């Protein structure tokens, strides 16, 4: 059936996209950048989760390199959202093609 073939093709496309987003996310830094003002000066810290703990690592004063890091962290956050959207679409299509019980 033509529609089923189209859906399966879309499912395959989403699987490729999922792999690619995971790879991209894996290469981007985790966490968030926090700014702390100490004695009138701003210092940056990278906060991220290690297991159950939240770790705060000192980065230094604001700089161009840290702006770049901030951009990469933001990109990771956006790509994580894209990955969630891909996975949601995969579930929808799997249900259309295979039915609810067989959706993997």
């Amino acid at each position, binding site marked *: 059936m033509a529609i089923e073939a189209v859906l399966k093709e879309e499912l395959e*496309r989403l699987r490729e*996209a999922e792999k690619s987003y995971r790879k991209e996310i894996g290469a981007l830094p985790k966490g968030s950048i926090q700014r702390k003002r100490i004695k009138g000066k701003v210092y940056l810290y990278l906060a991220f989760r290690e297991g159950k703990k939240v770790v705060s690592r000192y980065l230094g004063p604001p700089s161009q390199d840290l702006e770049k890091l901030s951009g990469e962290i933001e990109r990771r956050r956006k790509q994580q959202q894209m990955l969630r*959207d891909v996975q949601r679409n995969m579930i*929808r299509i799997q249900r259309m093609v295979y039915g609810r019980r067989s959706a993997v």
Partner: protein
Amino acid sequence: MDDEAQFEVFTRILRRFEREGVLQHVMLIGSWCLRIYRSALTGARSLPAMRTLDADFLIPNQRLIKRDVDVPALLQEMGFTQTLYSTSSWVVYDHPELRGRVPHPGVG
């Protein structure tokens, strides 16, 4: 494959092309034209909603485009990820809702 979500991403690409000053130099061809007609024209709901997964653009005259536009970078800014790098003619970018294919650098 939500039609509205897909169409929203597609129109965002068109608006970005417009901001970059290249929309007037590209021509949308193929079954995606029907989707635009359904949206833009009253009385066009009878047009079929089925279309191919790829939206195709033709550039009738490349020489009229006076500025370089980094289409891969533009797609990546919009959340696309590079999924396939074909050694033949195309580089493929995917988004949760759409796929984009860009000619391999040097091919066109």
